[in-house]
């Protein structure tokens, strides 16, 4: 029984090491997705704010959301990470901040 648990632990650690890049990046998805697609929904497609909140809603919640209309900048937090997206120009629309 102990050996089995040890084996499972080794396998789990191996998987974590193998997938470390993907695992590290994973928590950014929700805030980055929400910031970018809300920015484009609101400032490229020119939909209203309420519609765009529904448009970007995912099964994982976000903890903080702010839209600065003067700078057309969206900042979103979720899963312990924060990301922001900003409108660039008429032709280039929105982009995630690097």
């Amino acid at each position, binding site marked *: 029984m102990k050996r089995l648990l040890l084996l499972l632990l080794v396998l789990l650690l191996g998987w974590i090491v193998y997938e470390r890049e993907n695992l590290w990046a994973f928590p950014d998805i929700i805030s980055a997705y929400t910031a970018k697609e809300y920015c484009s929904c609101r400032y490229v497609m020119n939909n209203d704010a309420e519609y765009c909140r529904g448009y970007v809603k995912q099964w994982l919640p976000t903890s903080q959301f702010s839209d600065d209309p003067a700078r057309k900048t969206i900042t979103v937090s979720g899963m312990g990470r924060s990301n922001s997206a900003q409108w660039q120009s008429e032709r280039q629309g929105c982009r995630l901040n*690097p």
Partner: protein
Amino acid sequence: MFKGLTLLLLLISATIQAEPWPGEQWPSGSPISNVEALENYAFPPRDDTTRKGIRTDALLIIRDGQIIYERYAGPTNAQTPHLTWSISKSLMAAVLGVAYGEGLFKLEDPVAKFYPPLAKHPQIKIADLLHWASGLDWQEDYEYAPLKSSVVAMLYTRGHRDMAAYTADHDSYAPPGQAFRYSSGDSNLLAAALKNIVGPQRYPDYPWTALFEPLGIRHAVWETDATGTFVASSYAYLTARDLARVGLLMARDGRWNDRQLLPKEWLAFNLTPFAGYKAHQDEAVPGGQWWLNRAADGAASPWPDAPLDTFAALGHWGQAMYVIPSEKLLIVRYGDDRDGSYRHNELLKRVMQAVRP
């Protein structure tokens, strides 16, 4: 007498050449009236709270260069530059086609010639990327495998600063040009290659100068990554009417009024099924960044109720533009389908029924 004859000849030639083209606006044709079955399918009661079911944002039908049906729903209207998602890939193919017509590259050119970071995969040719056959080990899943999804990582996490470089970093799983695997990364490598194909000075305006402006498209948006490379996989925005202009260009063999904007051999490549495609690998048969309703690899054509010459640009959440040259028909359908219940064949079937006299 002589004057009268000249006038008559002029009138006859004008009738023969009467081929409607959009100017600032699209001309209108006789509207179709038999739309009930079509609307029952495309516009059921809309639920923006649960986001369930078919949610069409725009449906535009054009026959012989004239609008015969147009309806919008949800927040979308005729002025909305709607996100096209992967229709962007077919648009980038059209942009590349103009550069091809300038003689700036060949289909058999190695991509690394124009995009040096791909030097670790020197065998990949432009044609292979157009076929989504780079052989790079790419995972396209969006929602169902977020941890392993290359496309989610490219757009939102590890890849978003430089999407082409992120793609080029992938290992290969097959020799280039052999096997089809749908890849947004392949499309963004094309966008990165275009930078040196046309030169960095022309690049930021090239989609506009090469394609949008000649077609009279006034409000196109194409987002870039932080290196300025167009997100050819996903992020072009056009109104339904403007997207249809690209459809008309394709339907009329790459010609816009009197100008051959896309070389005919470029279109022929776009619309030829990729030989390495295996039956049922995807929802339609890939050509060169366009989707074809063709029998392939022993399987019947994917949309049995549509003519065999139907081809399409398709995007996530139900974005579609279908072109049916034999019927002089073109259909733009924007949507926000989140549950995958929308079926191309069903819409095409009902459009075909609605336009029959």
